[in-house]
């Protein structure tokens, strides 16, 4: 008998086709070697294992000398030592390998130039890989959720997770980042875990071991997923202990360690090749350096890639979590613990905003787990059959989807970075205005920089010696007379231009001697200074080792050339030791 093609199958079929069209649409005008292409920067860093293995055999002398530069610096080539250095692990490369080989086969059959794994065909196949794993992830997540909720809730949850979170961005636009692959592994892990808990067959345990090991290989912090093995669906600590004993059974433990070893073997070999050691910490200069002062508030609420400002639907995940905890529902504690663990992981990581990202991307794989409290919340509201509550929830859900899609399509599709300060809400409000989500005033009124966001750092390297807020400040350059603090072109402020700009910055001098430095301002046409003013620092920064506020209102001349550039800098003719932090620029558009 012919099998019926169910509504569910149609749903996934349509989702697959739509996702394919969208990923093609988002990349169709992107060239191969720019930040809008599939393989750029971090994405190239994950991918490089494949061309390095199958085209170059890790011989960097056979690689184009500038391959690392033209692909955005996601890895580096050292032709002197003949080493290829990528800090990313090889899990993503393993997962996209079937697509890589298919692209190679198609290239050969059609007579295309494979360009050593960087042809347009390879790029398109990597986009396809992300879509396939996205669909599989959503499919397994739906199957998993159906153990707990009715099908309508399951479909609603996976649709909202796809359209209402940054999974959409990291599957269809930046698909070669690790998140969509981790999301698939997490979804399948949850499904396999549920099946294992229902019937503890060895095959499910083997699959669980494989999935956990691969997740760890992709992102070592994914090890916290293993926590669910002990707690999911468990009714008490006795159950936890029973599962721990189960894992510690020699056969189980041996199998898990063997899978972990086999999957990690290519990575160990690579680290040995790179550093001479089997184990190597590739994230040099990074790490969990914020463990003493975790950035919880910033990770969750900051305009710089905070979880809730960019993925407001996550508020409903948390609402569901609290609801489950309050009602002592099964798995509420597990989901909440996972949320806390991932938040701790992000908040203690040195670059807590994860560079140029769209929202808190480290949570994406955990949305698979958050789907359970989210489903709980939705189910609860819908089963109450209260018209106002249901309408309000629908409206909020639609609004969050709208915000996410608009943010993605109108904003982050072009701009991959957020160019604002940790708590600069004015900039965030204007970003919402630019993407058309809110009708923001077109005029920029302030600019803040606490020098934490590397995307707007005015100097090459920040200082960590003295800081007023956060981890970084700017140290006056000892080699040159001027250390930049801020610059902008007049056209970025829009016409009419401001009449004055109030500048406030906090400065610290370690010594007690006068520095001879000043807070400088200039309006430049290229290198030519058209207008300049200064505020001597010594009259305001008197005591050593004390942060003092330096402020001055500078005049913007009446000019017609929109290409002129406003510059704020520290003028330091004596090359004194001086630190600056927490810059605030206020634009004044009238004289009164």
């Amino acid at each position, binding site marked *: 008998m012919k099998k019926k093609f169910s509504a569910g199958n149609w749903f996934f079929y349509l989702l697959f086709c739509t996702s394919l069209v969208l990923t093609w649409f988002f990349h169709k005008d992107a060239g191969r070697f720019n930040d809008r292409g599939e393989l750029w920067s971090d994405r190239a860093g994950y991918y490089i294992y494949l061309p390095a293995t199958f085209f170059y055999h890790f011989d960097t002398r056979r690689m184009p000398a500038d391959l690392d530069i033209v692909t955005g610096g996601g890895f580096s080539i050292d032709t002197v030592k003949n080493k290829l250095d990528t800090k990313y692990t090889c899990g993503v490369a393993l997962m996209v390998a079937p697509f890589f080989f298919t692209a190679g086969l198609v290239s050969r059959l059609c007579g295309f130039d494979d360009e050593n794994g960087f042809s347009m065909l390879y790029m398109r196949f990597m986009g396809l890989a992300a879509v396939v794993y996205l669909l599989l992830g959503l499919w397994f997540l739906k199957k998993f959720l159906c153990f707990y909720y009715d099908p309508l809730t399951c479909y609603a949850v996976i649709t909202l997770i796809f359209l209402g979170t940054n999974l959409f961005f990291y599957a269809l636009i930046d698909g070669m980042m690790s998140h969509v692959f981790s999301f698939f592994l997490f979804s399948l892990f949850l499904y396999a875990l549920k099946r294992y808990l229902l019937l503890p067959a060895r095959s499910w345990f083997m699959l669980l071991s494989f999935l956990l090991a691969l997740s760890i290989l992709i992102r070592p912090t994914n090890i916290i997923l293993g926590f669910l093995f002990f707690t999911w669906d468990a009714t008490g600590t006795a159950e936890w202990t029973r599962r721990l004993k189960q894992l510690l059974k020699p056969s189980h433990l041996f199998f898990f360690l063997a899978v972990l070893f086999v999957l990690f073997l290519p990575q160990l070999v690579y680290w040995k090749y790179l550093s001479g050691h089997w184990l190597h910490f590739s994230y040099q200069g990074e790490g969990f350096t914020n463990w003493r002062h975790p950035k919880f508030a910033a990770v969750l609420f900051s305009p710089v890639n905070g979880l809730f400002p960019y993925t407001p639907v996550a508020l409903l995940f948390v609402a569901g979590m609290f609801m489950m905890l309050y009602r002592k529902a099964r798995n509420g504690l597990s989901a909440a613990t996972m949320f806390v663990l991932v938040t701790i992981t992000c908040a203690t990581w040195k670059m807590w905003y994860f560079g140029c990202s769209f929202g808190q991307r480290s949570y994406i794989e955990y949305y698979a787990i958050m789907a359970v409290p989210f489903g709980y919340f939705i189910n609860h509201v*819908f089963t109450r059959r209260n*018209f106002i509550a*249901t*309408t*309000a*929830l*629908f*409206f909020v*859900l*639609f*609004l969050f989807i*709208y915000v996410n899609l608009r943010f993605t399509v109108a904003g982050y599709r072009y701009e991959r970075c957020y160019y604002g300060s940790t708590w600069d809400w004015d900039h965030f409000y204007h970003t919402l*205005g630019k993407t*058309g*989500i*809110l*009708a*923001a*005033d*077109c*005029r920029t009124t302030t600019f803040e920089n606490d020098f934490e966001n590397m995307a707007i750092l005015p100097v090459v390297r920040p200082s960590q010696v003295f800081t007023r807020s956060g981890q970084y400040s700017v140290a006056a350059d000892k080699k040159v007379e001027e250390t930049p603090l801020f610059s902008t072109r007049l056209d970025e402020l*829009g*016409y*009419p231009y401001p*009449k004055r700009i109030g500048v406030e910055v906090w400065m610290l001098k370690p010594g007690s001697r006068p520095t001879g430095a000043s807070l400088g301002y200039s*309006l430049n046409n290229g290198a030519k*200074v*058209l*207008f*300049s*003013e200064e505020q001597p620092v010594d009259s305001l920064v008197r005591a050593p080792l004390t942060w003092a506020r330096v402020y001055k209102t500078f*005049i*913007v*001349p*009446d*000019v017609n050339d929109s290409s002129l550039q406003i510059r704020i800098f520290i003028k330091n003719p004596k090359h004194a030791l001086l630190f600056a932090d927490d810059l605030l620029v206020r634009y004044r*558009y*009238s*004289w*009164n």
Partner: protein
Amino acid sequence: MFFSLLSAAGLLSLFIVLNSYLHEGSLEKSRKAGEFHETEHLTDTAGMVTSRVAFHDFEAGDPADPALHLAAIGHTGKQSLKMSSAMPFSPGLWTRFRDLPAGGHGWIRATGYVWFSCLPGDVKCSLVATCNHQGANFKYMFIALEKENLVPNRWNKITIDYRIPEPPLGEDILQVYFWYRGNGEMLADDIGVELLRVK
């Protein structure tokens, strides 16, 4: 459930439409902001000391000498300045900030009289008050005569109030003048600048 869905979709549409309407309004406001220039008005001069810092009645010189750009008709005297594309800038005030009387910069009030015979909207001329630092103008304020509904074929009084800003340097310059931007002719006379300071 269906009606809730429909209502929510309606609310979202309302949100989007309202936002685009407000956004259009904001864009319009921003466009218009470029069309208007800022002016200042000194409404209360009580308790202020007034001193004349410049005055030009154009009575010196021979109107027959074309190099002097004088006309044989005046507001109070017998002569005035003939402004044209050959004489686009009138004399007025040109002073360095350091030469202004000490004790606060206060305001200036510049006054002049103009005569023209063309249509009022065609008088392409401005009474300008501005400061200059390193060759660049700042706090450039003006009265555009073509927008002032002046009366042709008679003397019209033009006044501009201007709060003197804190300059970056004492070397900087404070200026007041008429700038004729048209291709025809216009007469200007009795251009005076008063400095008003709080006692």
